């Protein structure tokens, strides 16, 4: 007979809470920096000089065709032999930023490429500088168009951060692992952690959908979409 004892896990709620907060923190930093990197790479691929564009596409292809866990291990275990020593937390953030940056670059580029030509021409005819054209005219509606895809990608990266526990970054899956090593209730510990991840992914999705129009790209007139 199977006997489940969730109470043994739930009494360790402070550890779970700390883990969840850590996961959220990691994801928030990675989302901010990753989006920045994604926008920069998206710009480079659609407007940048040719050498930069091809460099960026090599980066995007390399990241999109290798597993996150290998990228993480390479950064955490591999880089120290070049003299770059990183704490688990910093390595996790770097890996998440590099990973999100590559996916976001593709998404942002799709948004930029769909900008009607007339809008760019209109902006130029108003004597805006190229930088102004990009940051004021092209980028906001482009981000608005692809925001749902970016939100999904950020959620995917957050769920992917469960792997960071493997290099002992103290996030949610690490907390679950710690709990099950204390009370041997492995299945229950991971069920609870999985439920928390599910709640986090719903929460983050909701939060980003709410925050996007307010803080990232502004309210767009229907014609701008």
């Amino acid at each position, binding site marked *: 007979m*199977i006997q489940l004892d969730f109470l043994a896990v739930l009494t360790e709620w402070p550890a779970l809470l700390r883990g969840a907060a850590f996961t959220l923190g990691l994801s928030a930093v990675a989302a901010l920096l990753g989006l920045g990197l994604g926008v920069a790479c998206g710009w480079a691929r659609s407007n940048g000089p040719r050498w930069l564009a091809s460099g960026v596409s090599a980066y995007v*292809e*390399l990241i*999109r*065709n*290798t*597993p*996150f*866990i*290998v*990228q993480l*291990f*390479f950064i955490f*275990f*591999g*880089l*120290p*032999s*070049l003299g770059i020593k990183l704490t688990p937390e910093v390595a996790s953030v770097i890996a998440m930023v590099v990973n999100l940056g590559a996916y976001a670059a593709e998404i942002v580029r799709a948004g930029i490429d769909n900008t009607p030509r007339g809008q760019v021409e209109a902006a130029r005819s108003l004597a805006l500088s190229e930088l102004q054209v990009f940051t004021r005219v092209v980028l906001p509606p482009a981000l608005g168009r692809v925001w749902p895809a970016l939100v999904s990608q950020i*959620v995917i990266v957050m*769920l*992917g*951060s*469960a*792997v960071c526990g*493997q290099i002992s970054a103290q996030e949610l*899956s690490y907390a*679950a692992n710690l709990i099950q090593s204390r009370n041997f209730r*492995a*299945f229950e510990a*991971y*069920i609870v*952690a*999985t439920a928390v*991840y*599910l709640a986090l*992914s*719903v929460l983050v999705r909701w939060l980003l959908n709410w925050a996007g129009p307010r803080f990232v790209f502004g309210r767009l007139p229907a014609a701008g979409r």
Partner: protein
Amino acid sequence: MVDFSLWDIFRNLGLAARWTVGLSLLAFVGGGLVGLALLLARLAQWPGAQRGVAGYVQLFQGTPLLMQLFLAYFGLALLGINVSAWVAAGLALTLYSSAFLTEIWRGCVNAIPKGQWEAADSLALSFGEKLRHVVGPQALRIAVPPTVGFLVQVIKGTALASVIGFIELTKAGTMITNATFRPFTVYACVALMYFALCWPVSAASRKLERSFRRDR
């Protein structure tokens, strides 16, 4: 200490890569079958299928694959089934793939104009005939590029099976690192091998998508 040349590292990783390929194929084919069954249940509008499958998809897309692997590993053990990492990883990745594939394919079926269903209805075709002769062939054409694209996701997903002790490419990389103390070289080789596996698949998916767009 054993001396490992670069060639030894590559050779051993290549041997381990066979397990990555095997597990990927198992999960992809198994996931495809389960995903197809779920899709059919949805299309046939079984009571509760709509909600049930939507919940299933949400569950697998909203939780980390790593947790799913742990749950399969410890859950099966709890049921008293003596599990090897093979079984647990195969099961978890199959379910994971089925959730994604059923959602991808549902999108493809939804992309078929409603008039096609109605025309098939007016010809008094049965549910099976409608699928086989009218909707299926059209949906299949749209479905090929994203399905091939998802295979890349599955291959990358198998890397997580290393965490529950399944010896594939990533796990072999860790083991070789422990023997050689050359993590930089070894993990670079591991990444290169994944790239060699995944990139052709990604490229094929893109090419299929372009040729499909041209045909329209």
